[in-house]
């Protein structure tokens, strides 16, 4: 592991911790009643189960092709079982009782891998399916404008179009590369709507946010994310260089990646 990677991971780890605890009034510890089996520990604390942790990436990154993500990020295998808190078959309990620094490294690495895969894969129009016997089949992949509307909300796509922020080829060949809309061209209402759509997909509506003690209201949580984006716009932050150099000007696509990065897994999966 190079020094740059280590430094990068530590920055990610810092940002994960900051995102999960910095702006929250109460500590993010999970309530003891929130127990679920197949998890890090089976008494008192409830951490997301290994399969849920992996599944959540699929939900967060619907445009990423599975096969372009490292296997250890999309399957439970010998490399990640221990780190993710899978139960040791011999003892019936997890080998580690709670997420540790190895988990932070794994999560940060996989988060970036998924962000990269989604950023590049949504451009491709085909994908491979690997079969039980080891053979692979090429299949056509259809990305529609509707997919973008689902991901970025119909209102935002409509506003980008009316602002002339989307290339003319988008309607006939929708892909991330032709979805060139800039964040600053959006109205404040659309910006809020976009952030809200990501929060709702990952966490849920206001009642959930309040029930889980994530924020006193949905508005407060959205404002927290909007402030973070605003801070980035004023001073591009090296914490968000998951696609190479952080851009000097934010796009809607890049902002959405940043949001997926900022909404931490604990809030996504606690219940």
């Amino acid at each position, binding site marked *: 592991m190079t020094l740059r990677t280590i430094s990068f991971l530590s920055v990610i780890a810092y940002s994960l911790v900051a995102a999960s605890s910095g702006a929250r009034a109460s*500590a993010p510890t999970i309530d003891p009643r929130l127990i679920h089996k197949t998890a890090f520990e089976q008494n008192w604390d409830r951490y997301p189960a290994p399969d849920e942790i992996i599944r959540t990436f699929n939900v967060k990154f*619907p445009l990423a092709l599975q096969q372009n993500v490292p296997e250890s990020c999309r399957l439970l295998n010998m490399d990640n079982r221990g780190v993710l808190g899978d139960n040791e078959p011999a003892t019936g309990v997890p080998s580690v009782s709670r997420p540790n620094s190895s988990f932070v490294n794994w999560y940060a690495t996989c988060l970036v891998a998924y962000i990269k895969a989604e950023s590049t894969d949504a451009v491709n129009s085909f994908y491979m*399916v690997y079969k039980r016997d080891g053979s692979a089949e090429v299949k056509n992949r259809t990305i529609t404008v509707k997919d973008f509307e689902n991901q970025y909300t119909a209102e935002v796509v409509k506003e980008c179009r009316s602002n002339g922020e989307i290339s003319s080829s988008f309607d006939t060949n929708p892909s991330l590369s032709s979805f060139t809309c800039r964040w600053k061209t959006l109205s404040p209402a659309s910006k809020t709507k976009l952030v809200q759509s990501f929060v709702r997909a990952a*966490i849920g509506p206001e009642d*959930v946010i309040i029930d889980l003690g994530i924020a006193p209201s949905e508005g407060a949580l959205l404002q927290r994310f909007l402030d973070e984006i605003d801070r980035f716009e004023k001073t591009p932050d090296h914490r968000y260089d998951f696609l190479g150099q952080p851009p000097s000007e934010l796009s809607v696509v890049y902002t959405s990646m940043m949001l997926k990065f900022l909404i931490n897994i604990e809030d996504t999966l606690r219940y």
Partner: protein
Amino acid sequence: MNRLTTLLIALLLISFALFTDTAMADTAPRARLSDASYLRKLSLHLRGLQPTPAEYAELEAVENEPAKRQAYFDAKIDQYITSPHYQDRMVFRLAELFQLRTPEVPRLTSVTGPISQGYYGTPRSEHPDALLDLFSRIARDNLSWDTLLTGKDYFAGALTDLRTFEPLMSSLSDETLLDPGKPPVPVSFAADDPRIAGALTTARFLSRYNTTNVNKNRRRAAAVFRIFYCDPMSPVVPPPKDKKAAVLAQAFGTVDHGTVTEKELQDGMSISDAARHGGQPQCATCHYKLDPMGKTFQNFGLTLNTELAPGALVFARPGGQKVNVTVKGIGELGAAIAKTPEYSACQVEWFWSQLIGQDVFLLPSRKSELTADFDRLGHRANDFIRLLVKAPEFREKPRKIEMLTQLHVSPLLKRCDSCHNAMGTIPEFAAIPTQLIDPELLERMRERMNLADDDKRKMPRDWTRWNPRDLELLKRWLNEGAADANGKGQIKPLPTAPNTKAPDQGGAK
């Protein structure tokens, strides 16, 4: 006796009944989850996925119409339970119960068609071995939970499965056995075939719980007691420390055990009668159950036995009443287990821990009610899960635990029963909280738990494989004064005990 006295006695009896059940519970009012949080909890518990934004929007649309809202939740529960993701969750849960390595889920194929339709991906339907396939079919087809013990139909996807069934089958050709690329083959036996017993006669179970000349299928029997009777079967007497590794290697089959007999092993190890596992009176607390059950697995290696081995299902009910059912063949054993009420009660506990939470105390009266429901529903897992996720306990808001009480540690105390109860040295912890613990015993437990690791009197002994975190919790409860179910200390707290909260608390909602 006048009428007033009779009335007073009746009132006292009612008060006692309430005290021993509901009044001992954690009775502070609990807030209900909001509708959106309930939907989220349902989706995460049943599918391992969050609801989609569209589902939240649908719920919002019926927010002010109670009948429609209830219908919406009912429809969602049905939808989630029939989804392939639910099957995956159940396979995971069952793999954990059987202490197997969990599959490489989420086994998602890539999305097909428009991405918006395949938002969560589609899990594959087939499983690599007959046991995981059985787990998956129980969830997919809403089969009876008893299928784990009495099932006769399999899909043998792996060669090892076919080889396990081979001695009992006439129709398997050599080509089938030798072709590793062959798709899963359906393997069925007659409904009354006594040689077959669901999960217990699969290659995966037999290889996970292997046998040796020393353990003589007791390991398999211990797994059956753990899984189906919630009996942890902790060993009572350890092998001598200096030769522990060698004995374990022999006992658990990590060397060529085929050439070593039990006598040779014992002679070779020079273990005195007093120290030998099985040579002490307290060993009988487990072996009177394990040995007769182990015999029903006789001559099972990794392949099944064509002959029916005689054995018995033996265990003691709370209060000491012995159950002794003579069986011939593993199939009869499975059927006998499925008929016992203790099996139903244990499975209800398991479902409770999965859906409601292990630390939410299952009151005896509630447990009886749910066990009756489980029986009424024909032990069908999906139907019982439907019932549980509609139960008020599932809809309660998570609550911060202010103080460790007997309710929180009672599931842990039950572990002591398996070794000690039959020796008569402790009360029956399984009966807690309807039975209060003698303070002198609590003091003694605390003293023994706080001893140095190398002290021979220290409890529990290191070979009993307690989860360190469970131990820490139990010790902390004792050190803090062993509060009863109502939070009243039963013994004096230790001066150093932090008289505060449960471990790692915070995040109050």
